[in-house]
Structure formats: structure tokens, C-alpha cells
């Protein structure tokens, strides 16, 4: 990566493969805002990008890995967390970030998600939630609010959606937060905190999807979505995650919900095996620089 910084150059440019621009995201999509916030967080916390890996699955958000000019994996559908767990186990000194959509992470990859959280694998998981499978045309996603319209639910969704912070907390994540793409400063701050947090950190970002979700549900364009987040989101830090589910047209509770400490997967392995085996056990080389 070239280190020269030209003030006319957008701050994200040194971190992205600009030859792939313009990106595929629609006008008014929120995923680019997540990329902006991530780059600002990297700059503020002075991350060594040679020790940074970005992993994502399939979907609109899954494209993030392809656009980042760092070590990045664009994995199969639903499998970013297994890839990232393997990467973290092989290279414990790396900062491993998972960026993916809600359909990829908690529907197709749902089992990987809960078990990585249960084991407390040292991953930083950013879930961009736009309430639908946008890239494949708008099927019902695992977080689609009740009564919302989708291509596979033309009269309205009747399945109970996932409440992602509650799912992450009950599975064992050590850091759980939710913000919308309107809360950019808070997103940067949360990503900086996640960077320094050992263990399974989960950040849900509510993002507008003007082309699929909002068009089918007559919620206006991307700007209307952002205005809605501005008006209807309520910051409740430390809220009980059982009460933060999202209803169609209702309030969105945002904030940092959980920040607790548990031994990570590799630390727990070291503790258990050195306790049982004593001097015969050689500790796992975890050289994490935080």
C-alpha cells in the first residue's frame, strides 16, 4: 500500500481496490457508509493493515471483502465465520473481521454464528442488516419484520424474525451493539472498541435497502430510510436485549447492549489443557497486539 496521502484523495482510497470502483451497491444503499466508518476506525486506532484480515460471505455486504485492499476472503455462502475461525486459529496475531449480511450470517450460517459465539472465538463480526436477501431479488430474510412484503411473501411475512442482539447475547458474545447507518460517529467508536475487545464481538448495523426492501414495502428511497432512522431510533445503552426487536414502522432501539469479559476460545483451551497436563502442555502462541 502506498503511504502517500494526498488531501484531495478520499480517506478510504488507500484501503480499497479503487480499480474496482464504482462498486455494485445501489444509490442510497448503506453498505458504503459501513465501509467509511470501518476505514475511519482503522485510521483512528492505527491498525497495522498487514495484521488485518477481512472475511465476508455472499450477498451485497459480502462484496466488502473484495473491495478491501487487505488480506481478504470472499467465502462461500454462510461460511465466513468458519473461515475466519480457521484463520484466527492459524494466525492468532491477526485482527480478523467478518463483514456479512444478516441472511448470510444468521440464516444460512446461523449455526456457525451461534457456535462461534458460544466458544468465544476471537472474531469481530459486523452484520449489516437490511431485512432482506437483496442480491437474489428480495426473498424473506431471517430478520424481515412481521407483515413486511417480500418476493416470497407477497401478502406479508408471518414468521417471527430474529432479534439479533438477543441471539448474540444468549449465544455468548462478549460485545453486542446495534447502530443504524445514521449513527456514523457511534459506529466508528464501536468499531474502535471492538478492535480492542478480545472475544466474539457482534455489531449489528441497520442499513437502508432502497431498491428491494424499501421499494416493496413503500418506505421510500435511501434518504427516506435515513430520515426514518434519525427520527425513530432511540439510544438505550445497556438495554435488555430481549426488548430490542424491530417492528415494521416501529422504533429502533440502538446502543451498546453488552460489554463483558470471558476467556476466548484459545485462552480457554490453554487454561484447560495446562491445568490438566501441567508442564507437558506447550501453550498456544497467541501473539495478539491490541
Amino acid at each position, binding site marked *: 500500500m502506498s503511504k502517500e496521502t494526498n488531501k484531495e484523495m478520499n480517506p478510504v482510497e488507500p484501503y*480499497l481496490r479503487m480499480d474496482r470502483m464504482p*462498486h455494485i451497491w445501489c444509490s442510497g444503499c448503506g453498505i458504503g*457508509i459501513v465501509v*467509511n*466508518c470501518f476505514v475511519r476506525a482503522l485510521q483512528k486506532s492505527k491498525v497495522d493493515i498487514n495484521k488485518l484480515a477481512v472475511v465476508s460471505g455472499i450477498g451485497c455486504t459480502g462484496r466488502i471483502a473484495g473491495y478491501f485492499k487487505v488480506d481478504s476472503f470472499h467465502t462461500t455462502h454462510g461460511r465466513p465465520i468458519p473461515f475466519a475461525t480457521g484463520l484466527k486459529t492459524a494466525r492468532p496475531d491477526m485482527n480478523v473481521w467478518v463483514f456479512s449480511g444478516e441472511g448470510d450470517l444468521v440464516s444460512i450460517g446461523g449455526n456457525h454464528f451461534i457456535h462461534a459465539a458460544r466458544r468465544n472465538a476471537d472474531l469481530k463480526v459486523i452484520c449489516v442488516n437490511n431485512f432482506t436477501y437483496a442480491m437474489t431479488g428480495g426473498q424473506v430474510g431471517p430478520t424481515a419484520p412481521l407483515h413486511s412484503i417480500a418476493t416470497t411473501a407477497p401478502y406479508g411475512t408471518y414468521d417471527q424474525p430474529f432479534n439479533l442482539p438477543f441471539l448474540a447475547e444468549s449465544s455468548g458474545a462478549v460485545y453486542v451493539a446495534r447502530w443504524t447507518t445514521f449513527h*456514523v460517529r457511534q459506529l466508528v467508536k464501536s468499531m474502535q472498541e471492538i478492535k480492542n475487545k478480545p472475544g466474539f464481538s457482534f455489531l449489528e448495523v441497520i442499513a437502508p435497502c432502497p431498491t428491494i426492501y424499501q421499494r416493496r414495502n413503500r418506505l421510500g428511497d*435511501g*434518504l427516506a430510510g*435515513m430520515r426514518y432512522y434519525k427520527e425513530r431510533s432511540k439510544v438505550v445503552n445497556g438495554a435488555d436485549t430481549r426488548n430490542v426487536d424491530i417492528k415494521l414502522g416501529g422504533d429502533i432501539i440502538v446502543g451498546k447492549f453488552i460489554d463483558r469479559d470471558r476467556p476466548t476460545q484459545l485462552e480457554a483451551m490453554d487454561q484447560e489443557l495446562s491445568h490438566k497436563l501441567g508442564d507437558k502442555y506447550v501453550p498456544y502462541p497467541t501473539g495478539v497486539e491490541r
Partner: protein
Amino acid sequence: MVAAKVGSKGKNGTKKKGKFFGEVFIVRERCKGCGFCVEFCPTKVLALDEAMNEKGYHPPIIVNIEACNGCDLCGLYCPDFAIHGIRHRNKEVG
């Protein structure tokens, strides 16, 4: 690599009272006209241009650079990496 940028310098002059002044850089060709930067600029520096870029979107233009304090919210909100702001300290104010 990068197309010509529309830059405008804040005037480091006597009229300003703020501690900071800002510069805004726009890449017209990258813009997809979502309007986030215009809507969420706290000091209303930007407006949507009536002319279109080559993709047929209306990019933002700078209408009131005097008000800019370089907070870079436009850069954080732009999903297409087409705009960003830079903050400078106003030495006369300190």
C-alpha cells in the same frame, strides 16, 4: 485514476469566527445522487447540482463553503466515496 476534483478552499479571512474551517472535495463522476451529504451536512454547505454527471445523477455542489467547519460528516455518510471534508485550524482565532 481519479477524475478531476471540484475543490474549494475556505477563505482564511477576517469574516470567520469559528475555530476551524474546512475544505470539501467532490468527485462528480463517482456520485450516485443519494443526497445523504446534502441532507446531513450540519452547516448546510452543500446542495444538489441541477446539472448531471456522466451517469445521470445529480452530484452535490458547494454553495456555502464559508459555513464549513470540516467535520467530514459528508465523507462518513457518502456510500460512494465521492466526497470528503478536511478540517483546518483557524490560526487567527486560535
